[in-house]
């Protein structure tokens, strides 16, 4: 073994070391800092109380996304507490002259959608945000991870973070995904395999022919969910798709600088003989559309399966978890997934609100109607630009004609900080990332699925295997 062989993670790490302490704790330089309204106010307050300023304002892009309304936006935010939080972000960005896409900017959207969309996210960067789904940006061979508010303040003040190097895990998916099987299903299948703590302490690189075949949107979906497997960071090596996605984006390098950047980006792959601390191998052909049945993303089964029986749980702690989850979800063991009826459908979130996601959902919705038992089916594009693109393609009409609501961009019902939420007991097919108790509204019941599966649940009123939908 050549000692010089490095993983992609090693390369990203090595390029950002500013200082290393004797125990390996490292001061790591941060290239990009994405900021939203929920996890930043206390950081800006701390910065100001200490008489400090942002170290590098040009490294920051801010956007309100969690609290923003998804309709009647011109009327402003009705909830005064939400409104104050967004106004606080506006004021902080104004005071420190930071770039912010405000609520009325057509580029506004979910922070993890707009970073890549603007080309602000690039290969080889360290990217942080006070949001766990920052792992999304790893799709561009960047080292991207979520941080807490103290660390948001730390990055604002110093452009650096103290980090310990993670272990490395390669999740290799070889073969071809079946028709109707998406990156979301891969993500859920991986979590089902390794568990929600399976990636704790690791940075995951997704590789293999099935990953290379994914679009950038698909890779973002996959890396987005790395955190649901416990890994702070997920990543995919650079290839032609990465580079073509970024070409011409507003914040991407131009001209001769572009060529220089591309030359560097091409090196951002794991060396062939690099050694990972753990390797998980998955056959793409084994993955079928997934549906979660419980209150943790690891509680997932194929759409062709049934709700499991706690009596068959591997240990007493899991058995108690499964019983509690089934009780919360209002489900009986052995119920076929395809017999579970839904009350609401949510298509959106930083996991699945990009143009490819909306196309896949629209394909299923086209010429059909939302089932009578579904009280609300909503589509929330990831950004104003995604929304505009979808409208240019006529997808909004497809959705509206089928009885879906077509909304304005934001985090919306993924975490229900704005007015979009489930009522107690309501069951939702959701393209988001977390099915935790109360996540989409107190007492709400979430089933995580892909966009096509969510659209199919909306028009059939219950889960169906989208592979059988023409």
């Amino acid at each position, binding site marked *: 073994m050549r000692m010089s062989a490095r993983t992609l993670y090693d390369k990203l790490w090595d390029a950002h070391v500013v200082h290393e302490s004797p125990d390996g704790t490292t001061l790591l330089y941060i290239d990009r800092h994405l900021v939203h309204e929920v996890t930043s106010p206390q950081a800006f307050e701390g910065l100001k109380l200490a008489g400090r300023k942002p170290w590098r304002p040009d490294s920051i892009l801010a956007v309100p996304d969690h609290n923003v309304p998804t309709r009647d936006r011109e009327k402003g935010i009705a909830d005064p507490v939400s409104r104050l*939080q967004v106004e606080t972000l506006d004021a902080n960005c104004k005071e420190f002259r930071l770039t912010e896409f405000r609520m009325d900017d057509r580029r506004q959207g979910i922070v993890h959608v707009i970073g890549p969309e603007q080309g602000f996210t690039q290969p080889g960067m360290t990217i942080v945000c006070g949001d*766990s789904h920052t792992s999304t940006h790893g799709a561009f061979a960047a080292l991207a991870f979520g941080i*807490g508010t103290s660390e948001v*303040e730390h990055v604002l003040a*110093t452009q*650096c973070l103290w980090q310990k190097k993670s272990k490395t895990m390669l999740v290799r998916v070889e073969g071809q995904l079946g028709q109707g099987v998406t990156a979301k299903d891969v993500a859920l299948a991986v979590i089902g395999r390794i568990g929600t*703590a399976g990636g704790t302490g690791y940075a995951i690189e997704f590789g293999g022919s099935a990953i290379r075949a994914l679009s950038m949107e698909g890779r973002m979906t996959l890396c987005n969910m790395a955190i649901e497997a416990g890994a702070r960071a997920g990543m995919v090596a650079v290839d032609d798709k990465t580079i073509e996605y970024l070409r011409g984006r507003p914040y991407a390098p131009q001209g001769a600088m572009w060529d220089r950047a591309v030359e560097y980006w091409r090196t951002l792959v794991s060396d062939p003989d690099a050694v990972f601390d753990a390797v998980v191998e998955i056959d793409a052909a084994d993955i079928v559309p997934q549906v979660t049945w419980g209150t943790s993303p690891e509680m997932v089964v194929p759409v062709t399966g049934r709700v499991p029986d706690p009596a068959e749980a591997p240990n007493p702690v899991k058995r108690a978890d499964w019983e509690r989850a089934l009780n919360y979800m209002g489900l009986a063991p052995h119920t076929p997934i395809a017999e579970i009826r839904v009350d609401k459908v949510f298509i959106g979130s930083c996991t699945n609100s990009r143009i490819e996601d909306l196309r896949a959902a629209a394909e299923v919705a086209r010429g059909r109607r939302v089932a009578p038992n579904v009280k609300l089916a909503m589509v929330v594009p990831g950004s104003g630009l995604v929304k505009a693109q979808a409208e240019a393609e006529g997808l909004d009409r497809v959705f509206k004609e089928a009885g879906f609501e077509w909304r304005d961009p934001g985090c919306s019902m993924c975490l229900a900080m704005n007015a979009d939420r489930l009522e107690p007991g309501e069951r939702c097919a959701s393209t988001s990332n977390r099915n935790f108790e109360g996540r989409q509204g107190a007492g709400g019941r979430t089933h995580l699925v892909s966009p096509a599966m969510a659209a199919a649940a909306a028009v059939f009123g219950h889960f169906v295997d989208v592979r059988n939908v023409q």
Partner: protein
Amino acid sequence: MTPFTRHVGLVAPLDRANVDTDAIIPKQFLKSIKRTGFGPNLFDEWRYLDRGEPGQDCSKRPLNPDFVLNQPRYQGASILLARENFGCGSSREHAPWALADYGFRALIAPSFADIFYNNCFKNGILPIVLPAEVVDRLFQETYATEGYRLTVDLTEQTVTTPAGEVFRFEVDAERKHRLLNGLDDIGITLQHVDAIRAYEQRRRQEAPWLFV
């Protein structure tokens, strides 16, 4: 930051795996622009029978008598015993803020989610990883003995039971040093200003497109 050296405290058992930060502090309380006052809403959906909203007077809300922290024997608990993957999910630092505001100084579990684990150290809370079988025993002892207290010593990296049994835990030297002394990370980092500037200068040469 409050330093953590040695702490003796009443133990409360939260017997669930994968307790996520949405459960620790639900989203509606994240609308606050302050760092304080989250304690009354810690575990809000499990702790109260009604729906919690920001700004309520929690002392008048109906408590869920089945929730462990509402049981009289665990009042005043400052050490939380939990199961694996505690603190998974969202990066919200409001979770450790709420735990600290409630009065927790130490957490013991077989594993913690990475971001949450990291956030605890920034707020004077010591998250302690012990083997699952040890945690299991501590659960049993906590249930069996009313007023069960543990002694946590960060200097020695030990947890000691009332019977005098000692369990050693691991913690990074650097984190330990900072928590023992209550040191502010930013203050430490700014001692490396020259190294940061030198890095930036070198990086501007190598990869100028990173600086827009």
